[in-house]
Each structure stands twice: as structure tokens, then as C-alpha cells.
């Protein structure tokens, strides 16, 4: 019975992995083969599909981090903290790619690598907060203390999200708001967002399972002591 369940689980995992990687591969192929070349920026415009998709994933990860931290604070159930930690790390990863790809695109579009305008600055600040949370978590061994620290820092870090999202509307800057796009470009962008979201969601789930495994190892070690 256990072996059949284990085989069924393996098949389920393989199907999920297969689906996610198909979506991601489809997105990448669409970006390079289907999307038309933009008239002004040429091939550099294709960075947009990566940049926007990964930023969206990062924002979703931050929201998940905040929600799971709040859930942990209310229930003290460590499972919520594992999801929060996984979301924090994936969010940090996404914003690393966002800042780098954005900087490369900015160099092509505006001729500068960086400018201190509202959206870019708030994105950098959020990245610093996420990196700080990861560092703070890594410096604590006890599971409950780590969860407490991570939850409080996550809830404080969420304060930057409204500024990041509304920055282009509240503060006039150079970051594009909603540029006009060719219908094919719009389709590719949607496909890219779907593919990257599926990939990062799977990554978050895998990391959460690993954090759970690490907690179990720690618990068994402590019981042995």
C-alpha cells in the first residue's frame, strides 16, 4: 500500500514538473521565436518579457510572505513560517533578476544603468529588506525564534509594497507605466507571466518541503541529544 502510494506520488510529481517545465519552455520559445522585434529598441526589448514576469512573481512572493507571516503570528503553526521563508527567498531571487534585467534595459532605453526614481528605489529597498530577512533567519537556530523574527520583519517589509506598486502614479518618473503593445507582444507577455509564475510557484513549494525536512532533521537531532 505504501509502495503504491509512493509510486503514485512520484508520478504526480513528474506530471507537475513536466507541466511546469513545458509552460516555461513554451514561454521562452514564444519570447525568442513568436514575439515580433520592436521597432526602436530591437532585440533588447525582449528583456521586457523577463523583467515584467519576474517582477510580478516577486510581488506575488512578497504578498505570500506577508500573508503567511500574519497567519503564523495568529496560529503559531510552523508550517506557515516554512511557506513564509520559502516565499522570502524566492522573492529575493525574483527581485535580483528584476533589478539586473531592469538595469540592462534602462541602459538600452535611457542610456543610464540606474536612476534614483521612485519605482527603482523602492524596488532596491525591498530587495535589501528581503536580503536582510534571509540573513536574520540564517543567524538563528531555534525554529520558533527564527519564525518570530522572520514574521515580524516580513510584516514590516510589506510596508514598501504599496510604494513600489503605486510609485509611477504617485511620483512622476521615467519608469514606463502601461506602454502600448502589439497584440502579439501582449500574448507573449501573458504567456511569459504564466510560465514564470508556474516555475517560481513550484520552486517555492520545493523549498518549503526542504525547510520542513530541515526542521525534522533538527527535531530528531535534538531528541537524540
Amino acid at each position, binding site marked *: 500500500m505504501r509502495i503504491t502510494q509512493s509510486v503514485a506520488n512520484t508520478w504526480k510529481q513528474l506530471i507537475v514538473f513536466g507541466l511546469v517545465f513545458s509552460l516555461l519552455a513554451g514561454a521562452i520559445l514564444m519570447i525568442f521565436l513568436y514575439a515580433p522585434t520592436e521597432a526602436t529598441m*530591437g532585440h533588447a526589448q525582449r528583456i521586457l518579457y523577463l523583467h515584467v514576469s519576474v517582477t510580478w512573481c516577486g510581488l506575488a512572493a512578497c504578498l505570500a510572505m506577508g500573508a503567511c507571516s500574519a497567519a503564523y503570528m495568529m496560529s503559531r503553526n510552523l508550517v506557515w513560517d516554512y511557506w513564509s521563508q520559502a516565499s522570502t*527567498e524566492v522573492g529575493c531571487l525574483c527581485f535580483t*533578476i528584476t533589478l539586473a534585467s531592469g538595469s540592462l534595459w534602462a541602459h538600452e532605453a535611457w542610456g543610464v544603468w540606474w536612476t534614483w526614481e521612485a519605482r527603482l528605489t523602492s524596488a532596491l529597498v525591498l530587495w535589501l529588506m528581503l536580503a536582510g530577512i534571509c540573513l536574520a533567519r540564517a543567524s538563528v537556530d531555534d525554529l520558533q525564534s527564527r519564525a518570530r523574527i522572520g514574521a515580524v520583519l516580513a510584516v514590516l517589509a510589506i510596508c514598501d509594497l504599496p510604494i513600489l506598486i503605486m510609485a509611477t502614479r504617485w511620483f512622476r518618473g521615467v519608469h514606463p507605466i502601461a506602454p502600448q503593445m502589439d497584440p502579439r507582444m501582449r500574448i507573449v507577455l501573458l504567456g511569459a507571466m504564466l510560465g514564470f509564475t508556474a516555475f517560481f510557484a513550484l520552486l517555492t513549494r520545493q523549498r518549503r518541503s526542504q525547510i520542513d525536512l*530541515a526542521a525534522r532533521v533538527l527535531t530528531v537531532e535534538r531528541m537524540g541529544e
Partner: protein
Amino acid sequence: METMVCAYVFAWAVVTAYLTWLAVQNGRLCRRLDELERPAKPGLSEKRSSSKAA
């Protein structure tokens, strides 16, 4: 063109580095869990049963 390639290569490198780190962590944790859950050595269990009999 080069800028686009740089952006995608960077993204791929960052994600690969993270996945590699996850894989290494996974291997280490699974090995550690196996060590902890492995039953005690035969010599040790015989000593325990003989001391119990006494």
C-alpha cells in the same frame, strides 16, 4: 542583442545557482536523516539485551 543575452544569461545563472544550492542541501539533509533514523549497530543491541537479561 548582447544586452538581451546578458539579461537572460544572468537570470539563468541566478536560478541555476539557487537550484544547485537546493539540491546540495537536499542531499545533505537526506543523508543526515538516514543517519539519524538508522537502527543501532548489531554489537550494541546485543550488549543491551545481555544487560537486560542480567
